[in-house]
């Protein structure tokens, strides 16, 4: 019997879907404003710090992928207790694994709540000045939870299907760059001191948060041995998207104006002229498309969260939606918490720093333990715990 069909239910995620999951999770609302922070720290040099920041993000995901590849086709909730605990008493491992899960899940829940609020702020400033924030937040959250509580294979297909949509605005931004960009705005390059350059690279790196979802999803990969390629290509695609957005913003506005724009990507699209004056206000169109990008981020983070909760506490698979429903108030509370937009950007910054910090720390600790204790996934056909 063909092994892949045997594992069809347990191992539903194809390698391309894994690629799509990473891209759609990392690319989200941050694309609407991350260039501003990069311009503030690195000026025109943001054009290359974003590339180096992306390489750091690649390194981060590489560590995670290598770690998870040692335990192919096993869910994190299965291998992590085994890795940490003793053979005899499985309870010890589970308790030791809890802080790790908590650290990662804290990122997922706060990042999704903040993404929701940030996009809400975009909507309120750009198109719906009179709509209450709570209505926007609840609409986004309820819809996202509704999708996120579907089985993992649905999430994977959802991402696979929506990935191409993310490319549309990038093409548009590229066109704006070609038309409105000024070469001189991107000069002079390499004016940073070492310290400033380091900071610029770090700030660029923090824009790439979200790849820790592999902790939830990689256990479902059909071919985890090919994951490195899929994940690295995903980060490469994200670097390309970010680079186009950053370089286009620098070229069109110049670093000095870019620093002052609240949502530079919207202004970038506003600067575009559509021939024939058919579509005059393209930024509404961009936001409409960007709903998809934000939504996939939300859904993936929440799905990862729900998946870990369900697996960790051995909750029945069809109860996912109840977990999701229970999460809505928490998410709403977190989302409404930042008291104003400055506070929101502050928390976005904190979560942006926290994400790579926790992924790399957790990844390296676990990898070190795995190497020291010489633990490997062993038999991939060990059944994952019964879920239904």
């Amino acid at each position, binding site marked *: 019997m063909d092994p892949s069909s045997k594992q069809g239910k347990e191992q539903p995620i194809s390698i391309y879907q894994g690629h799509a999951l990473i891209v759609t999770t990392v690319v989200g609302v941050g694309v609407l404003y991350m260039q501003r922070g990069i311009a503030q720290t690195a000026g025109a040099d943001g054009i290359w710090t974003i590339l180096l920041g992306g390489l750091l993000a690649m390194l981060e995901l590489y560590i995670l992928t290598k770690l998870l590849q040692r335990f192919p086709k096993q869910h994190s909730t299965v291998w992590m207790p085994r890795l940490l605990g003793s053979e005899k008493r499985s309870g010890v491992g589970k308790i030791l694994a809890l802080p790790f899960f908590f650290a990662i899940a804290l990122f997922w829940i706060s990042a999704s709540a903040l993404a929701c609020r940030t996009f809400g702020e975009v909507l309120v400033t750009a198109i719906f000045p009179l709509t*209450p924030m709570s209505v926007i937040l609840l609409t986004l959250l309820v819809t996202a939870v509704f999708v996120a509580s579907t089985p993992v294979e649905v999430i994977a297909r959802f991402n696979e299907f929506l990935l191409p949509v993310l490319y549309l605005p990038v093409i548009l931004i590229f066109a704006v760059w070609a038309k409105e960009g000024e070469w*001189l705005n991107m*000069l002079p390059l390499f004016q940073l001191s070492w310290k400033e350059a380091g900071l610029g690279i770090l700030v660029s790196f923090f824009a790439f948060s979200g790849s820790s979802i592999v902790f939830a999803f990689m256990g479902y990969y059909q071919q985890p041995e090919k994951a490195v390629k899929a994940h690295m290509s995903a980060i490469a695609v994200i670097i390309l998207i970010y680079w186009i957005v950053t370089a286009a913003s620098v070229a069109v506005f*110049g670093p000095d104006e870019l620093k002052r724009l609240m949502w530079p990507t919207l202004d970038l699209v506003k600067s575009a002229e559509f021939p024939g004056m058919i579509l*005059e206000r393209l930024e509404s169109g961009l936001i409409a498309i960007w709903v998809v990008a934000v939504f996939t981020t939300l859904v993936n983070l929440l799905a990862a969260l729900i998946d870990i909760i369900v697996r960790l506490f051995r909750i029945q698979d069809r109860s996912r939606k109840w977990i999701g429903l229970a999460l809505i108030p928490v998410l709403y509370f977190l989302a409404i918490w930042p008291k104003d937009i400055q506070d929101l950007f502050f928390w976005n910054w904190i979560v942006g720093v926290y994400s790579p910090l926790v992924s790399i720390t957790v990844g390296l600790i676990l990898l070190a333990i795995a190497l020291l204790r010489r633990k490997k996934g062993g038999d991939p056909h060990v059944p994952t715990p019964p879920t239904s």
Partner: protein
Amino acid sequence: MFPLLRPVRGWAVLCMLLALTGCWDAREVEERTSVIALGVDAHPQGYEVTVQVPNPLKVVGSGGSGGGGGEGGQAAVQLFTGVGKTLNDAMNEIRNQTNQRIFFGHTQLLMLGDQMARKGISGMLDALRRQQEIRRRQWALVVKGKAKDAMKASPKLEQIPMEYMVYLIANGVREGRYSSEGLSDLYSNIFNPGKQPILNFIEAEPEKVRWLGLAIMNKDRMVGLLPRKESQVLLQLRDEEVGESFNTPCHKRGYIVFQPQGLKRDVRIQFQGIRPVIRVNVDLRGEIVEKSCDVDLSRDPVIHALEKQVRRRYEHLAQTMVARLQKQFRTDACNFGNRVRAYYPQKWKQLDWSEAFSQADVRVNYHVKILRIGLEAK
């Protein structure tokens, strides 16, 4: 999906449908007062804001007039004016006069009275930048006198007076005679330390509008008006626009008129110590469109001689213009500073560019090529 909801599913769907009927921010087109042009003047109190609003009932093709006539000029629009210490203060006065919500999403023109422009516009630009409704893509002009009075002009050829101005500018830009820089460029020119904004300067008469030249700005303040001919040369040096035709004295009596059609500009900057040495080479190609002297244009030596004449004329104009920028306005409207910023970052940090520019050694060289002489063979 939600088994507990099954009994109330019908009601749940109904409630959702009711909630889906609209959104908070729905404002239909007829529920808006769409501003086509926004004028800002200086006022003893602060700002005087004037907006021009087209009246949909009076515009051709609307239902009211049965697709027929319609009225034009000032009959087709209404003006609203408000005064205030801040721009929003003034706009609030306008809001209190209009029956519907005032909407700036379709504004195509920002007009600044020259008093306003000379006083400095950064305060009011801040108000515009914060408003998401204001498009970056709109024309910004300086008008002679008050913007409010310019809005009262009613040229006959266009139904909505401000559209006349928009087309006037758009057309001139297409032909390379006017500055193509709108509000978006104004913003980035103000914030880019190496650049200076320029704006089209127009004059409005009761039934006419006229482009007078370029308003030279030192960041957010207008420092002077560059006359028409010199403005053309500035556009050539700054934006590689072709500019309008010039008459050049023939070497015999009379004139020939050269119409530039293509242009390539090359700026080289070097430093003698801290003094910038700027050399601009302009490659100009075009045709002769008029001749009032007695020369035979079919002969090569004649053409060469004329090319030299045209070249001299342009170089002279360019030197006058640059000298005016250096001495009178002390403003680097050619944006040479941006090149220094980009290519000589170390020098840029040491220099006070506005000072350095006025001391700079600038020379403009033209290379003129006459490609055609029109339908006349001689």
